[in-house]
């Protein structure tokens, strides 16, 4: 029964609108392709609320600050403001299977949200990761992050 219901609703998106839970589960192929383009549009892509110079949420502000502290070059960073695009706001959550904003992608791969980004930053893992992903230059002969010290 359920399967029949799901299959038929796939072809009638208008019906889905009545039920947000179902609507959220089916990202159209077109929307999925657009988001795929967005996540690979730059080596580092951040989906956030607001813009880097004007973040509109504390979590997004923290995420962009971490990227700035890591000195991610501007030409390698692209941000999308989900507040000006409701479709993107819901679509990216389903695409990444992640319920919150911000969301960080590096080289087309989902890295995590604000909590993960902050803990990686604090442990020094983020710097290594960004170096290995060719986002920031490797610094040779310099002190390693505290958490990695011998």
């Amino acid at each position: 029964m359920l399967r029949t219901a799901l299959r038929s609703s796939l072809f009638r998106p208008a019906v889905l609108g009545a039920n947000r839970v179902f609507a959220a589960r089916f990202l159209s192929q077109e929307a999925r392709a657009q988001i795929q383009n967005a996540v690979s549009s730059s080596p580092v892509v951040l989906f956030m609320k607001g813009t880097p110079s004007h973040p509109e949420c504390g979590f997004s502000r923290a995420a962009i600050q971490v990227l700035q502290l890591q000195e991610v070059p501007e030409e390698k960073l692209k941000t999308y403001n989900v507040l000006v695009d409701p479709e993107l706001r819901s679509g990216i959550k389903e695409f990444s299977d992640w319920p919150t904003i911000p969301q960080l992608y590096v080289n087309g791969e989902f890295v995590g949200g604000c909590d993960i980004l902050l803990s990686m930053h604090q442990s020094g893992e983020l710097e290594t990761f960004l170096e290995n992903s060719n986002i920031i230059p490797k610094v040779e002969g310099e002190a390693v992050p505290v958490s990695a010290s011998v």
Partner: protein
Amino acid sequence: MPIDTANLEAAIRNSLNCTHIEIEDQSNGCGENYAILLVSEDFEGKSTLMRHRWINQLLKDEISQMHAFSQKTFTPKQYEIHLAKGVQG
């Protein structure tokens, strides 16, 4: 159904062996903003991303009703180190 810390804790304890749970309602009472800290040996061998995805899935319905949600996930060993460092929250 409104979300409260008891609901959240029950949902977590149902599926997870937790030695320590902190659930902080940061919403000033409206029930829409939570930060949780979980310590469980079930996290052993799982990356942070995997742990968070697991918890997100577990609390899917609750999170969808929230405005903000933040989590920290430790194994008992990691939590000891975390406490030893004296890192806040």
